[in-house]
């Protein structure tokens, strides 16, 4: 395909910018309304903090998933994904911001500004045998230290990868840059594979500090992977609607649709494997996690699980559906929201018990976060041409056909 006549520069139009700003403004108004509606008891204050954490983690995890998927494409020598490379990079560029927010939130937790991680309270830990026995791992120094080191490693890889992509555009030696990328991506994948699981223990699993699940890290990981894939799909659809990426053909779209379908199943599989074993074994120390969700979040839990499983399965099973933009859009928007609900259900019961539910505050904060994230990513998208140059697989991706 000849790309010479194409407009490869995306500009953030006034209309799109206004939609993002409107989302942020409406979100903030709804949030404030939701906050003043309630009394300002400690649990309601914590509910605000927990919601902030849900949104920080969700959008951070999307950019982390994008970074992982980007590295995966290099390690697997995938040619088809080169057409998506700039879209992936735009999402990846949120990673430093997201990592900073995660670190600040963790730091505020250690400083007792909020009480998302109850084990950080020294008195609680001393009087609790379960927590005392875990204190070699669950202590503030480990928590902040590991968070900082892991986040730094992710951000260093992400910044290097995005910079090398622009170096190739500027006329660098594409093949040698590609080889360096492949090596670094493989190293990153190994580091990510081990560290992300430990990080999710700290950031999410230790909210229910007595509980543990060896599957938890993979389950969160599957969630962030599918989140990243959805965002790639939605960005591609946005660009298509502007008539911008003609080089991205139906086969590329089909493959991204397949990823959305497949990783939804991976997520379902891991969610269910974790649930079923705990439900069946019925051991008190394990079952607490699902008991609190069963008591206070039952409807939300099953709706979330059913939608994240059944909607992609039913709507994206056929080949034609994966090539149909309307289908991809509808499924993407629905399951993006319900993967946010997934994080919500991970965070809320352990922090505010029965007081968490999706009300005005939650909806408002979600809308404001979506607006900010979309604005940031689209702004990054406009900073580099939509198609890479000097990439050894460029020709192959332009002739991609399945």
């Amino acid at each position, binding site marked *: 395909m000849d790309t010479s006549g194409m407009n490869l520069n995306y500009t953030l139009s006034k209309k799109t910018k206004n939609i993002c700003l409107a989302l942020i403004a409406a979100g903030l108004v709804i949030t404030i309304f939701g906050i003043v509606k309630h009394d300002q008891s400690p649990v309601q204050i914590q509910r605000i903090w927990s919601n902030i954490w849900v949104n920080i983690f969700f959008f951070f995890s999307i950019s982390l998933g994008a970074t992982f998927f980007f590295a995966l494409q290099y390690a697997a020598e995938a040619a088809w994904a080169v057409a998506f490379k700039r879209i992936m990079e735009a999402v990846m560029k949120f990673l430093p911001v997201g990592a900073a927010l995660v670190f600040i939130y963790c730091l505020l937790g250690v400083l007792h500004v909020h009480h998302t991680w109850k084990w950080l309270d020294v008195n609680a830990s001393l009087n609790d045998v379960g927590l005392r026995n875990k204190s070699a791992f669950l202590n503030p120094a480990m928590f902040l230290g590991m968070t900082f080191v892991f986040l730094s490693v992710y951000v260093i890889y992400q910044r290097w990868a995005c910079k090398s992509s622009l170096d190739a555009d500027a006329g660098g030696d594409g093949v040698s840059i590609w080889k360096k990328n492949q090596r670094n991506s493989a190293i990153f994948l190994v580091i990510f594979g081990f560290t992300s699981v430990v990080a999710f223990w700290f950031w999410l699993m230790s909210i229910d500090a007595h509980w543990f699940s060896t599957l938890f890290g993979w389950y969160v990981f599957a969630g962030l992977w599918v989140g990243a894939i959805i965002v790639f799909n939605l960005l591609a659809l946005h660009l298509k609607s502007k008539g911008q990426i003609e080089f991205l053909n139906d086969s590329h779209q089909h493959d991204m649709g397949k990823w959305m379908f497949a990783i939804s199943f991976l997520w379902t599989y891991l969610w*269910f494997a974790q*649930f*079923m074993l705990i*439900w*069946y*074994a*019925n051991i008190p120390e394990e079952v607490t996690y699902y008991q609190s969700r069963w008591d206070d979040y039952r409807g939300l839990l099953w709706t979330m699980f059913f939608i994240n499983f059944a909607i992609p399965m039913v709507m994206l*099973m*056929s*080949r034609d559906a994966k090539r149909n933009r309307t289908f991809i859009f509808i499924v993407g928007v629905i399951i993006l929201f319900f993967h946010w609900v997934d994080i919500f259900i991970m965070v809320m019961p352990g922090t505010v018990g029965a007081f968490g539910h999706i009300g005005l505050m939650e909806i408002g904060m979600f809308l404001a976060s979506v607006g900010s994230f979309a604005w940031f990513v689209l702004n990054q998208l406009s900073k580099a041409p939509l198609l890479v140059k000097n990439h050894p697989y460029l020709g192959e991706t332009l002739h991609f*056909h399945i």
Partner: protein
Amino acid sequence: MSTKKIIHGIYNDEEMLKSGAIKLRAARVRVKEVFSPFPIHGIDPIIGIERTWISICAFIYGLTGMSLALLMTWYMMVSDWPTDIGGKPSFAFYMALPAFIPVTFESTVFCAGHGMAITFFLRSWILPGVTPKNPDPRTTDNMFLMEIEAKPEDESRIVAMLKESGAAEVNVI
């Protein structure tokens, strides 16, 4: 007694075969079959093969497998002889459903996979003791064969077209 002639155009290269097939189809000649050592990308629409129904079959086999497994677990564990394992309720099917999901999944995959394979073998008639339909053993090695059924009066025209498109060998049977 068939009055039709079978023409085999044998090529060394699959791209030549593809361009030859496009020309033949443009001249309203029906390509009956192509034999090749490996799947040729994009050959199906060129020689006018409809999209396969095997994915729809797989879906139906999968549904069958799922229904069978649910019926089996319901009958064995709930209806015929309610079994209490580890204190799990068995008064109603839905109460113990999570325990039956792995079996249901396995059965779905089993039926879909085997059903698809058996359907493929039957549809392609690849069975023990069946004479291979492959007209030339070289197509399992390095040659690509295009089979055309034609009326006797069209024979010379088609042979000429095959030769022109780069066929290494043209046989009329």
